[in-house]
């Protein structure tokens, strides 16, 4: 199975194709979930540690996903995308700790992650809509 950036795919292995499509869809869903959490945290004006608050909530989402008794397509990609967000947020905490205005710095970095996800989500969605090339 080979996927191309023009949205087509050559498929001999249907299982691999399905995993790729489901994985990309799941990653988009995970990024949206992260953005919802980050936006919620930032909306709380009393929150002094938005990264830590978001980490706690995302960890809860990961646990729920991993606890599902019936594996669902794309779960691994979903969890990986959430863990990527955790890593970013952890890095934000370190960067903010060294800043002169830690809370503002952390908020700024969280905003940047939201913006990055906003760019990545449609890309992941678009690239999950692969069309099998005829005759493959």
């Amino acid at each position, binding site marked *: *199975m*080979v*996927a191309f950036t023009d949205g087509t795919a050559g498929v001999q292995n249907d299982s*691999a194709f399905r*995993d790729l499509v489901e994985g990309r869809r799941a990653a988009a869903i995970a990024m949206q979930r992260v953005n919802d959490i980050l936006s919620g945290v930032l909306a709380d004006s009393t929150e002094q540690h938005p990264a830590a608050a978001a980490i706690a909530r995302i960890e809860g989402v990961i646990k729920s996903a991993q606890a599902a008794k019936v594996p669902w397509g794309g779960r691994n990609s979903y969890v990986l995308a959430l863990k990527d967000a955790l890593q970013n947020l952890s890095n934000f905490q370190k960067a903010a700790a060294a800043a002169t205005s830690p809370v503002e710095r952390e908020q700024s970095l969280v905003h940047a992650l939201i913006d990055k996800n906003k*760019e990545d989500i449609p*890309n992941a969605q678009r690239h999950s809509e692969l069309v099998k090339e005829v005759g493959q």
Partner: protein
Amino acid sequence: MKRNLIALLISLSLSIACWPQTSRIGVAITGADYDSNKGVTTIHLVNISKKEVSAFSLTFRAVLPDGTSTPSSRLLVDLLGAVTHGEGGILPGGSYEQTIFGQPGL
């Protein structure tokens, strides 16, 4: 010697590599090297299509020195993150190296 032996014994197949009439698309394996110190096999691939590759699957099995072979394993490599963030996928004619860790007997 062991390195060469193992490299030869690795049986690799890429789904699209043997498609009939597929000169217009595909990724081909050009070789594999085994690093006995790291216990890592590096597979060398090249994009023989005319389009940029964003993902590929790789199916392989290892034939061990005693003649037995491991079950077939599949690796799905998604380069979408690199594509999205400007590093790109595998361009036409471009090469790519994929490492495989911890294969039994390797």
